[in-house]
Structures are given as structure tokens and as C-alpha cells.
């Protein structure tokens, strides 16, 4: 059943009166010219209407808690409910961020311990928890690389090398840091083309951004050589830790030669994705970048925990958030890491890899084409549907939609860009074999139907709250607010004011 907009459920004057002060205090001292003339157009609804509306809306979503969700590169693993409950204890939740350190020792101890564990899993020597998502971690990393070169009087290093398989945030980050992006190709085996790399490095090289395993789902085997090439040219290596789940407790980015790494805590350390965040993109660095880490950082002296700030870290790239990053997400990751422990972390990568390789094998055996069949899958892998798309017209997007009808969230589609008609599939370690088998069977059934009746597949999805949506219209006839609908102007993109 469709759920009307909350605005359309309101009636003038309706309220949820328990939620606001019974009477409003006087505002007679405020300058009349600054007062609002008309109340803001917020919904006027009852508490029950709100609860019912958002409960119903929630039911329109696929989520980890309701569906297998093998969205590649996103590590949609089980989010333990304990993390949520414990991070929301009043002692953490009701603290003002500027409360004195003496009032917050329990909280600071969690963050300090978290910093230490993050050093252990990266092999790095310094950590800052402040970046609020992977992309902000990337920003911090590249900014530190830039600051390092500048501090050494080597300000001309403004190029960031990025493989063509890289996530979009990598080149976008380089731009935000004022660097130029130099793209290098992937070789046919899925590894970076090291010869191409050699050709582009030089005195202008600030550094390289890599994920390992890459977004192709394969471990970069020549990583040591790459590190030598980049370091040899005076550049630094940035590790995009979005794929850390694949190697957790098996290999350390520091040992691979990386100078800085971010980790998406919302991936490897299972904080919730929340329908689009919040995440946390902590950064860890080797010794030479430590002075540049963003602040604040938690320090310890004489058993007391304290914030390290500007005065402690004068070379810091500065502050990246109004207070202390996504504190509640850090606490959730902390709980998860303590639940896993060292042995549990190794098992995470082991079973994530087992699930991915098993599913890749099953699909290959059923006639699907892995993008890199000769390689081990890391915690994820790609299949390309280009043959079937060519033969039947059924595309990766059609497969994605047909999967929804079978009760599975779709894998990542059309990323990385270099593999045509691709599905990037990441089952994660928390899914059971029976669900992998069911998912494989669903893909097989869709493929078989595509061969028999391509048009039928292209009708999918049929069972979702809406059927296939018109994206083009969404971008052309912009309808971004309820106000724009209410407007009686012919062109819905016009400003409703």
C-alpha cells in the first residue's frame, strides 16, 4: 500500500502536544523585523500519525535486518544490536561534547582503546578518529600527504595517482585537496599496470591512492613493487581501507608500504549504514605523518585521558568536524571490535573470503563469467553479464531489479566502471551458506528466464512498493520538495519560495 506524504496527512492546527512546551515563553524583546511572518510549512500531525507513518515507511526498505544485501564495496554485514544499545547508554548519549575531560574519562578511555586497536589492525603508529566517513578520511590522508611535502619544502608535489578501478571518492578527494589526478590503468589480470605507474611518477608526484584488495575484488600482488616505485619517486602511499574486511588480521597496510590509511568503520567494523550514514573514516599513519594528523586525538597522561589539540599538534592539518567526529559511531565500532577480539577479526576476513570465493565458484560453475576467473576472490568479486546482455538485451540493471523480486538486495551495479555490465558481489562473513546458495539459484533462474523470455525479466521488479522508476524524468522534471508539488505553476522545477 502506498504511504502518503506526511504533509498530506496533516490538518491545520493538529499537533503532538506532549512534545513541546505547554506555553511558549515571551519573545517580545526580539526585533520585529527579524521575526518570521508565516510559520514554517512543517507537517501538522498527531504523534500516532508520525509513529505510524515512519513505521510504515521503514517497512518499504530492504535492509540487512530483513534481506541478504550483497552490495559490493559496502560490506553489508550484520550490525550487532549490542553496539547500538551500548553506544546509546545515557552516560555517553547525554554528554555535551565540551564537558570537562574529568567528567568524561569512561568515554575517553573507550576512544583511546579504539585508537590502540586501530593501530594494531593497520600496523600504523598514529591514529585520529575524527573523520566522519571514508571520503573525509581520504581527505585527511591526502591533506596530510600534501602537508608533509610542503613541510619539507617540496610544495610542487601536486599529483595524486589513482587507478582506473578506484572508487569515485578517490579522485574527488584529490581535487578537494587541490591536487591533480593522474589515472593509471588496470592490467588484464586485475593488478595495477606497474609499467604505466613507472611512467607517471616523478617530482610532481604527491602520492598514490590504492585499495588493496582493489575494488575488482583481487589482492594487488605487486604492492611491494608499487610502494618502491612511488616511494622511490618521493611520493607517499595512501590506503583506502574500504576493503579492509578482506585482510583483517591477515596483512597490515603499514607492512605493504602504505604511509596512511583510512578505515570505514561502518564497513569492516560493522557500524550501521543508516540508510546512508553516518559512518566513520578514521585515519592511521606511520611515524612521519603523525605530526599532521587531524585533531582532536585522545592522549593519556598519568592514567588520565585528555584531548590533544592545536597546542599539542601545531603541524596538524587541523579540525575536520565541529566537535569530535561521529563519536557514537566510534563507540559502536569499539563494542564490535571488543566482541570480536583478535581471533574474531581474523575469522571475519577468513569467512568473508570463504563466502566470496564459494559464491564465485558456484556462479562460475553455473556458467556465469567472473571478471577475473583466474584470481582468488577477496571478500568480494565481480561477474560480468556482457555476453548475456549482448545476446538477450537483459542488462546488469535488469538482473538487479529481478533480484529484488526474489527477495535479495542487488549487488553493486556498473562499478567499477572498467568492467562492462558488472555486478560487484560482496556476501560478507555473516551470511550463511544456505543464503548464498539461494542467491546463486536466484541469479541462475533469472539468467534462464532471460534466455527464454527477456522481456519478462525486463519487467522486474513486480513485487516492490513501486515498479521500475523513471530516473530520467526525476533529473529532468525536478521535484525535490513537497512545496514544488503544491505549487500550481506549470513547471514544477520553478522556485516555490
Amino acid at each position, binding site marked *: 500500500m502506498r504511504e502518503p506524504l506526511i*504533509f498530506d496527512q496533516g490538518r491545520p492546527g*493538529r499537533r503532538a502536544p506532549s*512534545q513541546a*512546551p505547554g*506555553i*511558549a*515563553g515571551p519573545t517580545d524583546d526580539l526585533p520585529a523585523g527579524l*521575526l518570521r511572518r508565516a510559520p*514554517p510549512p*512543517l*507537517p*501538522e500531525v498527531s504523534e500516532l500519525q508520525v509513529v505510524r507513518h515512519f513505521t510504515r*515507511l521503514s517497512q*518499504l*526498505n*530492504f535492509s540487512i535486518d530483513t534481506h541478504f*544485501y550483497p552490495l559490493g564495496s559496502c560490506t553489508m554485514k*550484520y550490525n550487532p544490536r*549490542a553496539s547500538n544499545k551500548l553506544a546509546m547508554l545515557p*552516560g555517553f548519549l*547525554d*554528554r*555535551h561534547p565540551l*564537558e570537562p575531560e574529568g567528567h568524561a574519562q569512561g568515554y575517553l578511555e573507550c576512544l583511546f582503546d579504539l585508537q590502540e586497536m586501530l*593501530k*594494531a589492525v593497520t600496523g600504523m603508529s598514529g591514529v585520529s578518529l575524527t573523520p*566522519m566517513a571514508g571520503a*573525509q578520511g*581520504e581527505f585527511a590522508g591526502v*591533506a596530510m600527504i600534501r602537508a608533509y611535502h610542503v613541510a619539507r619544502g617540496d610544495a610542487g608535489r601536486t599529483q595524486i595517482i589513482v587507478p582506473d578501478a578506484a*572508487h*569515485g571518492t578517490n*579522485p*574527488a578527494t*584529490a*581535487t578537494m585537496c587541490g591536487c591533480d589526478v593522474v589515472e593509471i590503468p588496470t592490467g588484464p589480470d586485475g593488478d595495477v599496470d606497474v609499467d604505466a605507474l613507472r611512467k607517471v611518477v616523478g617530482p610532481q608526484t604527491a602520492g598514490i591512492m590504492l585499495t588493496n584488495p582493489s575494488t575488482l575484488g583481487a589482492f594487488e600482488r605487486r604492492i611491494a613493487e608499487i610502494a618502491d616505485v612511488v616511494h622511490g619517486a618521493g611520493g607517499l602511499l595512501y590506503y583506502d581501507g574500504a576493503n579492509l574486511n578482506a*585482510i583483517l*588480521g591477515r596483512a597490515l597496510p603499514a607492512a605493504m608500504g602504505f604511509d596512511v590509511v583510512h578505515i570505514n568503520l561502518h564497513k569492516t567494523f560493522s557500524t550501521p*549504514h543508516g*540508510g*546512508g*550514514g553516518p*559512518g566513520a573514516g578514521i585515519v592511521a599513519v606511520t611515524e612521519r605523518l603523525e605530526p599532521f594528523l587531524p585533531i582532536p586525538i585522545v592522549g593519556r597522561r598519568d592514567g588520565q585521558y585528555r584531548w590533544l589539540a592545536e597546542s599539542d599538534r601545531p603541524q596538524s592539518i587541523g579540525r575536520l*568536524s*565541529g566537535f*569530535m567526529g*561521529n563519536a557514537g*559511531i566510534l563507540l559502536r565500532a569499539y563494542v564490535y571490535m571488543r566482541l570480536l577480539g*583478535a581471533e574474531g577479526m581474523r575469522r571475519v576476513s577468513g569467512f568473508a573470503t570463504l563466502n566470496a570465493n564459494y559464491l564465485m*565458484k558456484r556462479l562460475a560453475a553455473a556458467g556465469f563469467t567472473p571478471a577475473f576467473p583466474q584470481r*582468488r576472490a577477496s571478500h568480494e568479486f565481480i561477474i560480468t553479464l556482457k555476453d548475456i546482455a549482448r545476446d538477450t538485451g537483459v542488462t546488469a540493471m535488469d538482473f538487479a531489479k529481478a533480484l529484488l523480486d526474489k527477495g535479495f538486495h*542487488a549487488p553493486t551495479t556498473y562499478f567499477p566502471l572498467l568492467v562492462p555490465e558488472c555486478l560487484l558481489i560482496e556476501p560478507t562473513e*555473516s551470511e550463511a551458506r544456505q543464503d548464498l546458495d539461494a542467491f546463486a539459484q536466484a541469479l541462475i533462474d533469472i539468467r534462464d528466464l532471460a534466455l527464454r523470455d527477456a522481456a519478462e525479466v525486463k519487467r522486474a521488479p513486480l513485487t*516492490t512498493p513501486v515498479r521500475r*522508476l523513471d*530516473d530520467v524524468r526525476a533529473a529532468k522534471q*525536478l521535484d*525535490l*520538495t513537497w512545496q*514544488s508539488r503544491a505549487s500550481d505553476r506549470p513547471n514544477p522545477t520553478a522556485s516555490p519560495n
Partner: protein
Amino acid sequence: MPFIPHTPDETSAMLGAIGVRSIEDLFDEIPAKLRVDGLPGVPAGLSEAAITRLMRERAARNMPSLCFLGAGAYEHHIPAAVWEIATRGEFYSAYTPYQAEASQGTLQLIYEYQSMLAGLTGLDVSNASLYDGATAFAEACLMAVRSARGARSRRVLVPRYVNPVWRKVARALLAGQNVELVELAASAGRTELAALAALEGQDFAALAIPYPNFLGGFEPVDELTDWAHARGMLVIAACNPTALALLKPPGEWGAKGADIACGEGQPLGIPLGSGGPYFGFLACRQALVRQMPGRIVGGTVDVEGRPGFTLTLQAREQHIRRSKATSNICTNQGLMVTAATIYLSLLGSEGLRRVAAQCHANTRALVAALTGLGGISAPVTPYFHEAVLTLPRPVAPVLDQLAAAGILGGFDLSADFPELGHGLLVCATEVRTAEDIDTYRRVLAGVLGVAVAA
């Protein structure tokens, strides 16, 4: 092995299907010398019972205080329904709604959120969130620089009494792109229009106006807006969203209204939470939407003509435009927006107005109570919801003594704004009672050695 469902039998069968002997074998592409056997720095795993006890003990060590501290994060009442619904698994454990048909819940919610933020700010469109107020402020500056006609200048003019941390964050985020913040002089807690004269002839891409400013005071927003527009600059409003229930929205400033509004979403149902996660909001005029960073949801129809929602204008974003994107942001603060949308629905315009008015009334009562002690003045008026007090002696030791008595007395302004003397920024939101205010008064009197009637 928490959260791993595999039985030993299943593991063997799966290894067999792959054709390897052990899980270790699956890592054989990692060069041997890079492989590690364990994680010496990580302790052994705990049961949920043990971590529960540990976290409860630590949370209990974070002493609760009576809070008169704002400075960018505010203690408001949060209806119980907000987080009971926002943490439902279907919201909590979903991701960015890439598969629109399977994510109509999140998409419709964001569309509703965009509508609410557009309404609050008086602008046309809103994005689906940025990380927090500080980064939203920085992104707004970048967006203005990109949008300014001809981009003659990479400088943004900023009044002195913008949140000082926001200014630092903006500096860190703008430095790489050589965008510069230039301070606009002020006195008595607000920008002096007279100071503008000195800037004639200089080029700026935008003027960013705090509303209210960090001291709780009001900038001359109408005059500043018209002045900036007359010089081809864009106008950015950096606003407290609660205040917008009561105050003229940025979209109505001056003759043409501000172009961009940004701010910290925390007051809209987000717990203080030791500092985060919060969310940043960003709204703008329709004409600027293609320069907006972050996710945007639009309405459309499905193949049967039924209305639905989807991510739109993705060509602005990193996953499509890569190095030419409007920002590198990808994961944003979805769950916080979920909470804020529920919060705004529960409060409604009348409820939010009452919250704003009551915050203001309480802060006035607080100012009256504390200045009544004598020797304390409130130099910045009018103010909204937060006010500067000037104490007769250094603020830091006073705050320490208050803290020891369980009172968060406010924000010490003396480091950032020495011109205010022993300046203390105080705030009493709608959750503070008359007794709370009296408690503060009595304890402060004790600290300052002033006699008061019990």
C-alpha cells in the same frame, strides 16, 4: 566466532567446492612476507554480557551535569518515538538507496526531510545531509565559490562572530582549493555596517552570515544581504535550525533573500552524544542546485505511472563525475536525517516555535538571574537563545568550580574573543526549569562569594 554462521561441516564443504584445503589457502595471493598471524595489540574477544558490563561501567564514569552550555550543541528534549523508530532495523541497517524500488522508505523520508528544510530556510531545495554543521559551512563556501558568477574571486567574507571551530574546519577544508576566509570586523557582538566601506573595491565570492551568531547576537542580515548582492556576491546563511521556527528565514533576507543556507542539524532531535554523530544541512535556491554537494532525492513515477522517489542529479556526485564532482562526500548522515525528520514531524511548526521561544525565554531568565548577582553584565543584546555574560574575573576557574558542583556553566569566550573580557557564553534551552536556573544562580553566587537570598 561471533556473527559467523558457518558450522565446521559447512566450512569444509565450501572449501571443497572451491577446491582448497583451508581458509588460509584462500589468502595465497598475498605475498607470504606480508602475511601476519595475529593481532598482538588487540585483546581477546568478549561475550556480549562482558562488554555490556564494561560499557555500563564506563558510561557511569561520565558524570551527568546540569547543562547551561551550548556553543554549537544544544540539549533539547528528544521525543522517545524519534530514536525508537529511527533505530528500527529497516532504517538502521539499510544503506544509501541505490536500488530505489527497494528503498522507498528511506527515499520518501529524505524527500520529506528536504521539504522540511526548504520550508525552514525559506529556500527552494535541500540536500540529504552533510557530515555536520562545520563541514556544511565549508561546503557552502566551496559551493558559493563555484557558483559565483565568473568566479572572479576565491575569497569568502565572514563576520567575526561565526563559530570559531567552524572557521577552523572551513580553513582546513578550503585550504587545498585556495579558498580564503576573510574576517569582517565587528564590535559589540555584531558586524559593523560601517566596516563594509573599507572593503569596497575588493572582490569576494560570497558573504557568510551566522544567524544568530556565535554570541547569540543578530547580524544586520537584511543590510548585509543587500550589500553583498549589490556587489555580485552570493549570500550564505549559517543558521540554527531551531531559531528558524521563530526568525525570518534566510530566503527572505533583504530584497532577494540569501542564496544558500547551512547549519548544524543537531538541535533537531539528535542527542548531544559526546559530540556526534550530528548532521549538516544545506539548502539553496533552485538555480544553484547543480552546484550542491551530497545526495538529493527527487520524485518521479514508475512504469505504471505511480509516484515514487529516487536519487537524482547524480551527475554532480563523485561516483559519476569523479574528480569533477561537487564534493567527495559519499556516505553522509542518513540515520540522523531520519531522526530529524521524525523530530520535525512530531514538533510541527507550532511545537518548534514553542521550543525556540521557550529556549529564548529561559536564556533571558538565566541572564536576568545571573546579572542580578551584581558585577556581571550582558553586553550583547538583543540575543537569541544564547547570551554573553562578562564576569568580574577569569572564566576558566569559575567554570571549574561550577563543574565540580555538577554545573556546566557555559563556554569560556576569552581565548577566541579576548575583546569581550572575561566573556562567558551561556544557554538555557527549553529543558531547563526555573529551579535549574536558580541552582545555577546560587552556586555561582557561592563561587563568586556573593550573598544571595536562598
